[in-house]
């Protein structure tokens, strides 16, 4: 069941949430809507679910080609999971999951035995068979969210929509549920859209990631695509740590600290001031100026606690600070000390003309 939205515009009072957003999700795909708060991702999800409606007549929502824009939420058969679970407190776990089956109209409602079977299977899926008679107030956060997901899946929805499903949980539980969700998706292959502001989560779980910002989609692609080839400075910065180097771009290269680095995509005759984006782990540090192009920098601070080591350096020519990420092995070989002079090689430089909004 593919999902498509076309030209969705939505305003809340004077606050514009979405500007003409369009998106296509293939059947069985798991797409993450990633972005900072206020980017419109939750609004988009809710419009797809039918909990909100687009402002303009051009905004359409389609499930497998069928226009459901005007269909009320209770007819759409889209499963929805809320950040704060929204479990029915007066019902136990079993009844919560069975709810969607019990409210079906008389002719499509399954018999009691079938309901019991289906709920039982779901309880097995979420590994909470022993807690079927418990009430939501007696469950932990992670358990509640699993019940919420089972509840959404019970009605065999065409689409699964998750609104920051793990946002309210501890880091450890979040990681566990992340893996669990990915496995679930492998098993069930239901078209899924989920909203998150955690880029690590999006990159780890999704088939494709759509990055939203201020009501627009900045970029859509597989996690590798958008990480390695970010389209805008915003995407670059949002998806992980980044260093910014001021320099000049000329003819496919950028000059930083007097040294030239290849910068694909910056072809153009004249010299323009530019900002070079480099990931901390794409910087190579040596004690001697090597054969490759390097520029000089001074070590300000280093710390090696944890799986990786980090160096804080400062350009010798203009004092610009930047960070480098090293493996423990590299760190041990280098043994940098504060105040020492080292030489820095930039790899995989991404240049955006100065003045590009970040």
């Amino acid at each position: 069941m593919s999902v498509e939205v076309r030209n969705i515009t939505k305003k809340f009072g004077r606050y514009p949430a979405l500007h003409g957003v369009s998106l296509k999700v293939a059947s069985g795909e798991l797409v993450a809507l990633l972005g900072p708060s206020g980017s419109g991702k939750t609004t988009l999800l809710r419009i797809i679910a039918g909990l909100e409606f687009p402002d303009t007549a051009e905004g359409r929502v389609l499930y497998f080609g069928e226009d459901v824009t005007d269909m009320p939420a209770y007819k759409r058969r889209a499963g929805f999971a809320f950040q704060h679970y929204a479990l029915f407190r007066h019902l136990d776990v079993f009844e919560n999951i069975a709810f969607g089956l019990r409210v079906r109209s008389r002719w499509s409602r399954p018999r009691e035995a079938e309901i019991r079977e289906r709920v039982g299977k779901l309880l097995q899926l979420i590994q909470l068979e022993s807690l079927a008679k418990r009430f939501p107030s007696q469950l932990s956060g992670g358990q509640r969210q699993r019940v919420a997901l089972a509840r959404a899946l019970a009605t065999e929805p065409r689409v699964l929509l998750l609104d920051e499903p793990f946002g309210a949980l501890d880091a450890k539980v979040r990681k566990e549920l992340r893996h669990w969700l990915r496995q679930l998706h492998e098993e069930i292959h239901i078209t899924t859209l989920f909203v998150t502001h955690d880029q690590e989560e999006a990159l780890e779980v999704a088939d494709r990631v759509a990055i939203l910002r201020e009501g627009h989609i900045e970029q859509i692609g597989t996690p590798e695509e958008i990480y390695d080839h970010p389209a805008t400075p915003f995407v670059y910065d949002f998806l992980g740590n980044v260093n910014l180097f001021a320099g000049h771009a000329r003819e496919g290269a950028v000059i930083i600290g007097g040294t030239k680095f290849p910068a694909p995509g910056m072809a153009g005759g004249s010299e323009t001031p530019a900002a070079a984006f480099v990931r901390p782990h794409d910087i190579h540090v040596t004690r001697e100026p090597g054969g490759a192009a390097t520029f000089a920098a001074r070590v300000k601070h280093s710390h090696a606690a944890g799986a990786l080591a980090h160096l804080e350096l400062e350009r010798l020519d203009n004092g610009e600070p930047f960070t480098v990420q090293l493996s423990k092995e590299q760190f041990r070989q280098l043994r940098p000390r504060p105040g020492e002079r080292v030489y820095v090689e930039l790899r995989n430089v991404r240049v955006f003309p100065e003045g590009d909004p970040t």
Partner: protein
Amino acid sequence: MLGFTLFYSGLIVLIPLAATFAKASALSPLQFWHAVTAPRVLASFRLSFGAAFLAALVNLVFGLLVAWVLARYRFWCKRIMDALVDLPFALPTAVAGITLATLYADNGWIGRWLAPLGVKVAYTQLGVFVALMFIGLPFVVRTVQPVLEDLDVEIEEAAATLGASRWQTFWRVIFPTARPALLTGFALAFARGVGEYGSVIFISSNLPGKTEIVPLLIVIKLEQFDYAGATALAVVMLVVSFALLLLINLLQWRSSRHYARI
């Protein structure tokens, strides 16, 4: 501080109540039984409890309606109506009594519409019922209203995404959540109605055996210096009040346990 509190409560509350039970215990069990099962007394029990029960029941329906409308909708006179719901609670019972009696009399503003239909409210048992409905309304509305106001909109949205129509969402999700508050409101309205005096004695004709409520009977017995009889009745009423109080506390404790804020 603590000592003062206990002393004060003891003085004002405990001693007089103890006197009641003491006086009643002066009766032998047989005398007690006779005192509370005389036909006139039984009739007054039937009326007081019966009317209070029915009034609280009807208030459940209308109270829920009013609470719902106040909690969820916006309309032009909402604030005034919301404040007015407290009127039966804040108005002195004697004022309520004479007002209702005048309104529902055959020539009263409301009574004159009902008289041609053959419906007599003032000076009948129906009048007692109406007065108790007036008194009990705020109890139901004010216990249910906060529950409806605090209802998480996401719960209703979740029900909608699971396929529930608006009516199903109300019946299967909202109403069960409000049920404990409704029960509490009912118990409060009932408890108040059983002991009500001022609002009822004006609209009732106070005929022994027909339209006499228990509190009035107690007053009459006191005036006749039948202290034993009066205290016997009072003991029955107190026992019922205590039982209701316990029930209400139990209901509230149970619901707070069940619906712990997630």
